[in-house]
């Protein structure tokens, strides 16, 4: 099957984007270069095409209890126009997907899911509808989305709208925000560890929004940003990527994301029983941060050893563009996850020394 094109595909080509296939989509991995794009987001402002993300709407009288039953986080705690990060788990505790839940009101929710998982998620949600009085719709094909990220994101976007953006707090959303004449929904969210907004509109409007933001951001040094720095930015900010830090095989407790799994939540949710059992029994393996002591770059899939015994593997690793250090996340036996523990990473048939550090790499 040919890779799908987002409504911004032609813009990426015009901007000299290096197009690759990702999760079934043709998207730029970088334009000018991963490092300058990464730095633009950390120090100024960057713009990402995230139209490949999936959007699923759940409406109806039972929307709140239904969404709450599907999710590990406590969806009943959020107010109208609030956003919450959560996992959707299998009964065995593994992750179907990680996502953002937008609450418009208690009978209307909007789920933003990973591109690679849209069909799987939609089928999963439909299959659990049961007697819940809800309507479920996958509107992914009709939604265009960009993420404007960085310390100057608000300043840039404010030039294009009369809505007072300073009034939209972290993880809040606002609908019917007009950006340079285009009606959008925006939320103060992102996947970079920086301030910023995610902007949703239709496929036609998103092209205008994209170009208007790039124009408005010129004075601040805005750069269009590709998938390459999207991954290094989210990694430095300790944000998980599905299929790496969490997956069907790696549950969110092992990933160290218990904050988003409300085992104490009164109502039942899918995975609650098994995750509770696993938590009470103690985890055999956990995600840990590490830093190489010797030279090299740890890459995803490299094996981790302690005294010659294999104890796990790297889920993500980079020469961090912000910290200029070789760091990574590794899923390893719990007994070796204490800070300061020395381990070895197998890099091209050689053991390279590393030590366990906090996986909150960015100290902000």
């Amino acid at each position, binding site marked *: 099957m040919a890779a799908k094109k987002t409504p911004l595909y032609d813009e990426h080509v015009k901007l000299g984007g290096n197009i690759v296939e990702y999760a079934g989509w043709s998207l730029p*991995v*970088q334009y000018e*270069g*991963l*490092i300058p794009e*990464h730095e633009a987001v950390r120090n100024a402002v960057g713009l990402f095409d995230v139209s490949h993300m999936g959007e699923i709407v759940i409406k109806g009288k039972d929307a709140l209890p239904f969404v709450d039953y599907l999710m590990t986080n406590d969806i009943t705690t959020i107010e109208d126009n609030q956003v919450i990060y959560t996992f959707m788990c299998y009964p065995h505790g593994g992750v179907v997907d990680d996502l953002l839940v937008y609450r418009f009101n208690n009978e209307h929710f909007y789920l933003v899911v990973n591109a690679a998982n849209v069909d799987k998620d939609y089928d999963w949600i439909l299959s659990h509808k049961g007697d819940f009085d809800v309507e479920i719709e996958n509107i992914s094909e009709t939604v265009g989305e960009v993420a404007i990220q960085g310390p100057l994101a608000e300043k840039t976007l404010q030039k294009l709208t009369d809505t007072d953006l300073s009034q939209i707090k972290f993880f809040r959303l606002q609908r019917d925000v007009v950006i340079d004449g285009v009606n959008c929904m925006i939320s103060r969210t992102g996947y970079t560890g920086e301030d910023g907004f995610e902007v949703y509109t239709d496929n036609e409007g998103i092209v205008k929004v994209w170009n208007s933001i790039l124009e408005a951001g010129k004075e601040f040094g805005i750069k269009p940003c590709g998938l*390459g720095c999207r991954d*290094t930015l989210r990694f430095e900010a300790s944000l998980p990527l599905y299929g790496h830090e969490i997956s069907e095989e790696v549950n969110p407790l092992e990933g160290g994301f218990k904050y988003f799994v409300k085992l104490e939540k009164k109502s039942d949710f899918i995975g609650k029983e098994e995750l509770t059992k696993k938590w009470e029994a103690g985890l055999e393996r956990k995600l840990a941060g590490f830093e190489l002591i010797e*030279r*090299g*770059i740890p*890459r995803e899939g490299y094996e981790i050893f302690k005294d010659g015994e294999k104890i796990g593997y790297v889920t993500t690793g*980079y*020469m961090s*563009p912000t910290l200029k250090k*070789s760091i990574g996340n590794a899923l390893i036996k719990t007994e070796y996850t204490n800070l300061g523990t020395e381990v070895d990473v197998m890099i*091209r048939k050689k053991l390279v020394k590393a030590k366990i550090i906090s996986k909150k790499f960015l100290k902000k």
Partner: protein
Amino acid sequence: MKVVKGLYYSKDHEWVKVEGEEALIGITDYAQEHLGDIVYVELPEIDDELEKEEAFSAVESVKAAADVFMPVSGKIIEVNEALEDDPALLNTDPYENWIAKVQLSNKDELEELMSSEEYEKFLAEEV
């Protein structure tokens, strides 16, 4: 894409500069351009004896790691340590910044490599 005359080239985009019985080995302009900003170079050990097409070094950008293969067989007699501190030298000038100096073990192997003209043609046709 810059190609320098008088060097030998491999299909894996390494170059060889012969100096008597010894040779300098590096990566081509095409290779560095393709990789992007280079952030790490793994150098071989001095005295390593390596066969043609064996991996002897690795060059890494933020996104990817690429092995560098021996275009000819030989013994490593010197490595370019400057690349440890400043790997981006390979981006700046890939022909000036060699990776390793080798003692050639079989000069006949040079015949199997491409001339600068052949490599230019190879880039135009194959890549």
